């Protein structure tokens, strides 16, 4: 089997055992990228020499006997929202085009310390605002299952890169579903860790109370290994949780749900859901029952209001966070002809540098925070957030995990929702509650929808700092389904 089809765990073991070098593994992936990037367009920045330099350095560290982690030498595609010293960082925005950050994000630094080799920076919706990656200022990414469809978003470059075998692993960020939804529609695994479990330092901020870095992989164990490699307490992030990383790798190696109590969220099914998505979802519930889990229905009525609450809270935080793009200290500056004031230059720069979705959200957030509207919108949304957290807490008194479809439909065609913001927002319907409550949640593949033969994801949600439960249940579903399919779901994807 060629190197690009191996799992990250296999590659790590082969490199550690001296069977193959990190340089050879990097070259195999760079060659694959050269072959399929014209079709997929997952990456915004690739620099073969920088990547090979990293691989050579890892090989030298291993030869010198340095003890590195299980992913040493394994390539990773890095979402272009994490700052990187040696590569440009754009967040998918014209306002940062060509910017070279003077420091590394904590996630970036930890990838390097663990010996992972960064293949390049992946495409995303501008500042992670979107569900299709069409909001990137640098063009759309294409879903490897069907190149006319979106790879999800906002981390769509990262999901497409892994699904197209350009990388065994990638990083993402999840603010309202931006890891889980793209994983779901590309047939791979994507995890949103507990909020505060992975560092936001050097992650270009969208909505600070929600943004959470997390892993993508082609299987549950690889995702756990990557989460373990870059997670954990970081004093540089004031909302970092000073607790050990949950035992995610051990859980991924123990696919056992016998005796577990699994809650089916009643509100997340029915009208608005694609029949093929519901069919695979219901089969996954039956599967869990057949594996010895106790399945009960759980009602969380306020989850229906999670989407409107999110579209007040996230834009409010974004309108404040994006004020830093002021044309003064870094990034684009437009119209500075010596006659215009700083304020005029700022307004011209932001109008030229931000795309339509970012402008919409900045204005929406400014509106929700305005005096006279604050209590009715932002204030009420924060109260709804409390109600949703309480419903989760009540649910977790009865069950160990909750399940739902990850997203109501399979991958939609590029362009279909591009100018209909409300239709686009519905993609995050089932993923948002876990962001508002800060809980852990994962998406694992659970089959193909009958209508279009495109991947469907099962979402598994767990309480704060119980990330290991997501992996345990996810691994059990994966093992049973791969047994039925005779291999991973991704093996059914057409050749590129």
């Amino acid at each position, binding site marked *: 089997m060629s190197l690009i089809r191996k799992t990250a765990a296999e590659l790590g073991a082969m490199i550690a055992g001296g069977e193959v070098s990190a340089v050879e593994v990097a070259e195999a992936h760079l060659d694959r990228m050269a072959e399929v990037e014209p079709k997929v367009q997952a990456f915004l920045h690739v620099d073969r020499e920088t990547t090979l330099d990293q691989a050579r350095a890892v090989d030298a560290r291993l030869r010198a006997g340095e003890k590195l982690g299980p992913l040493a030498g394994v390539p990773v595609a890095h979402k272009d929202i994490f700052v990187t010293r040696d590569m440009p960082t754009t967040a998918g925005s014209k306002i940062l085009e060509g910017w*070279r*950050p*003077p*420091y590394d994000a904590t996630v970036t630094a930890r990838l390097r310390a663990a010996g992972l080799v960064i293949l390049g920076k992946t495409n995303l919706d501008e500042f992670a605002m979107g569900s299709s990656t069409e909001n990137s200022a640098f063009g759309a990414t294409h879903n490897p299952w069907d190149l006319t469809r979106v790879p999800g978003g906002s981390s769509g470059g990262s999901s497409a890169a892994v699904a197209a075998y350009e990388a065994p692993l990638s990083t993402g960020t999840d603010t309202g579903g931006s890891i889980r939804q793209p994983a779901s529609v590309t047939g791979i695994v994507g995890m949103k860790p507990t*909020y*505060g479990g992975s560092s936001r330092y050097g992650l270009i901020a969208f909505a*600070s*109370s929600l943004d959470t870095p997390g892993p993508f992989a082609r299987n549950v164990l690889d995702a756990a290994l990557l989460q373990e490699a870059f997670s954990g307490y970081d*004093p540089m992030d*004031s*909302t970092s*949780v000073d607790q050990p990383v949950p035992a995610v790798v051990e859980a991924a190696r123990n696919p056992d749900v016998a005796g577990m109590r699994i809650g089916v969220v009643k509100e997340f099914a029915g009208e608005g859901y694609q029949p093929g998505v519901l069919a695979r979802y219901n089969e996954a519930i039956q599967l869990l029952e057949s594996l010895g889990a106790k399945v009960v229905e759980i009602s969380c009525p306020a989850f229906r*209001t999670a989407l*409107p*609450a999110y*579209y*007040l809270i996230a834009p409010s935080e974004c*309108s404040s966070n994006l004020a830093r793009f002021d044309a*003064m*200290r*870094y*990034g*684009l*500056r437009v119209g*500075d002809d010596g006659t*215009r*004031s*700083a*304020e*005029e*230059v*700022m*307004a*011209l720069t*932001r*109008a030229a540098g*931000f795309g339509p979705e970012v*402008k*919409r959200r*900045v*204005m*929406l957030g*400014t*509106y929700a925070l*305005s005096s006279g509207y604050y209590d*009715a*919108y932002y204030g*009420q*949304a*924060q*109260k*709804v957030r*409390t109600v949703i*957290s309480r419903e989760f807490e009540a649910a977790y008194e009865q069950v160990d995990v909750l399940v739902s479809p990850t997203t109501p439909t399979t991958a939609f065609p590029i362009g279909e929702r591009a100018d209909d*913001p*409300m239709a686009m927002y519905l993609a995050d319907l089932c993923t948002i509650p876990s962001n508002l*409550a*800060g*809980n852990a949640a994962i998406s694992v593949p659970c089959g193909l929808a009958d209508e279009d033969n495109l991947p469907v994801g099962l979402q598994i949600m767990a309480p*704060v700092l119980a990330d290991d439960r997501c992996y345990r249940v996810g691994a059990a579903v994966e093992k049973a389904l791969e047994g039925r399919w005779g291999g991973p779901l991704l093996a059914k994807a057409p050749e590129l």
Partner: protein
Amino acid sequence: MSAITRDEVAHLARLSRLALTNDELDHYATQLDAIIEAVAKVSEVAAVDVPPSSHALPLTNVFRADEVRQCLTPEQALSGAPAVEDDRFRVPRILGEEA
């Protein structure tokens, strides 16, 4: 009745420091109207006595130790600046003509 008028959108654009064209203002007025109507559903949750949550963690006022530590050099801090003069960020005039 619309939730937001075109004039209000123009005001929001000014507050947001976005120099929008008239066409853009028309376009965003229509879209923001639909979005605001949808997000107004938050009022359907009875939450009068519920405390608001700004984030999900039981953390308040996290401070680091007040110790000198390594930071960016002036060269690094200025490396992405649109304009630099004498080791400083050079900016357009910040005072009005009459000042």
